[in-house]
């Protein structure tokens, strides 16, 4: 026993970890939340929250087909997500429909197609709820490998392409005058987001993954002044939400994906009201001082 640590407290944190599925769940939750939070910075700064939501829903048909033919669900989701990402970047370049309209049509039809496919299975209610809302306690050793491997790949590419992606997010006109490969960078970012979404499915599910992409990054945006710090704070907040959410899920017996997302929302609300720079309270005080 460590000195100076309340044994009750220690027990609170350690007792769930006696189960192997909880250990794996916690690890998966930490990895996924951290990854989502970092990738999410670009989603927030480029105002792609709706797109992230749409892409996560579009994954469902891929998962469903993989499920029906007994294939690897992650692989199915990955193929569907990358296809949708590239599809969106083509459609938005054509520009005949407004982008949000095109996305809206695309993702609701994909969701309907996925549900149609899954509803042909008898046990579909249970399976569907796992896909929609995640099942972090069902994470197996293989899933952890997928999450870890793909997560590291996404972060590595993001680090390599950091500068051009930063320019593209901040000032697309500059990116064009610098002769950066703008269209390819856009597609790359979409593919990275879709891989992140796929990796996160098992933890938070299709319906809630967008929240993990957006909420920690938005919280970090309120608290920081530079993108590298924003990404670090966002990752920290994501991981904290992942851990807090999982413990809440264990002790309060609520769905894990939902409790992870609600933890992130809690941090967001704190920052929204109390951020020293961009918070509601700070701007009220500033306004009063200026009177």
């Amino acid at each position, binding site marked *: 026993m460590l000195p100076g640590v309340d044994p009750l407290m220690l027990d609170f944190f350690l007792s769930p970890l006696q189960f192997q599925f909880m250990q794996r769940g916690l690890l998966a939750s930490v990895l996924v939340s951290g990854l989502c939070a970092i990738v999410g910075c670009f989603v927030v700064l480029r105002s792609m929250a709706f797109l992230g939501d749409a892409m996560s829903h579009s994954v469902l048909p891929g998962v469903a087909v993989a499920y029906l033919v007994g294939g690897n669900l992650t692989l199915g989701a990955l193929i569907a997500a990358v296809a949708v990402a590239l599809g969106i970047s083509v459609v938005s370049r054509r520009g005949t429909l407004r982008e949000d309209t095109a996305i809206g049509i695309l993702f609701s039809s994909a969701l309907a197609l996925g549900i149609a496919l899954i509803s042909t299975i008898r046990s579909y209610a249970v399976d569907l709820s796992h896909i929609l809302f995640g099942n972090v306690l069902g994470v197996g050793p293989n899933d952890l490998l997928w999450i870890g491997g793909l997560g590291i790949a996404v972060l590595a590419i993001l680090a390599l392409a950091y500068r051009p992606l930063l320019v593209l997010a901040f000032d697309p006109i500059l990116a064009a*005058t610098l002769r950066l490969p703008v269209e390819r960078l856009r597609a790359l970012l979409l593919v990275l987001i879709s891989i992140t979404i796929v990796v996160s499915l098992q933890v938070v599910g299709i319906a809630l993954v967008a929240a993990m992409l957006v909420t920690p990054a938005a919280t970090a945006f309120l608290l920081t002044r530079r993108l590298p710090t924003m990404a670090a704070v966002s990752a920290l907040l994501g991981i904290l939400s992942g851990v807090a959410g999982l413990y809440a899920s264990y002790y309060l017996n609520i769905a894990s994906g939902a409790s992870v997302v609600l933890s992130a929302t809690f941090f967001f609300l704190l920052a929204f009201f109390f951020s020293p720079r961009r918070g509601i309270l700070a701007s009220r005080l500033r306004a009063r001082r200026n009177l």
Partner: protein
Amino acid sequence: MTENVLVPQPQNAWLELEHVDAGYDGRLALEDLSFHIPEGVRVALIGPNGAGKSTLFKVLARLLPLRKGDIRIHGLPLGHHCDCLAYVPQKEEVDWQFPVTVKDVVLMGRYGKNNWLERMKKEDDLVTMRSMIQMGISDLANTPISDLSGGQQQRAFLARALAQEPHILLMDEPFNGVDLTTQEKLFEILDELRRQSVTTIVATHDLNLALTKFDLAILLNRRLIAIGPPAQVLRREPIRQAFGNQALDLDQMIVVDQCCPE
């Protein structure tokens, strides 16, 4: 309209446009635009809202494809000269809440000089530093852009353009909402750029500045109305032709309505 083309056409024209058409969807924003600009001159681009000033900039920056015609820079078609063009956007086009510092922004001007996978070189740091010093904002290097005043914002973006070491510099309404010190600073830099033979094209509503501080004026309203020395271009008739009833004749002085930015 050729009788309004008053500029001699030198052999070494730096920027040439021949019968350029450009536009969005079905609408042409620029029609049959032809002019030559010699190297190193400072050009005021003047026209009413919707005259195609921004469209012209976008075409030059290759953000918008040409419908018809040719653009040549130093005799070569657009796209052959990497990095030769820098664009200072209107302040309204920038997301001032974006989490970057002044130095981050200026450094972005150097990204095109490198293969984007390489690390930044010492030279890039030096040019970044020099550009900030030139604009008098080196003490703001670590300030987030959200904390800048209007004048400082304009200086930060001009510093970025300087860091690009351009041959041609495009500026969209740089004098809007800028304090007098910054305006003087801008012209100091523009003088320096002229010494370095950098061609600058500045879209502006300010006829007075155009008249006193520029070598050449282009009057534009979808088509070329006139090009030449400002004193000859910015006269009653051509202005009336470009601005229609947006131009007010106030007793020897011509004023154009500038209430409503595009």
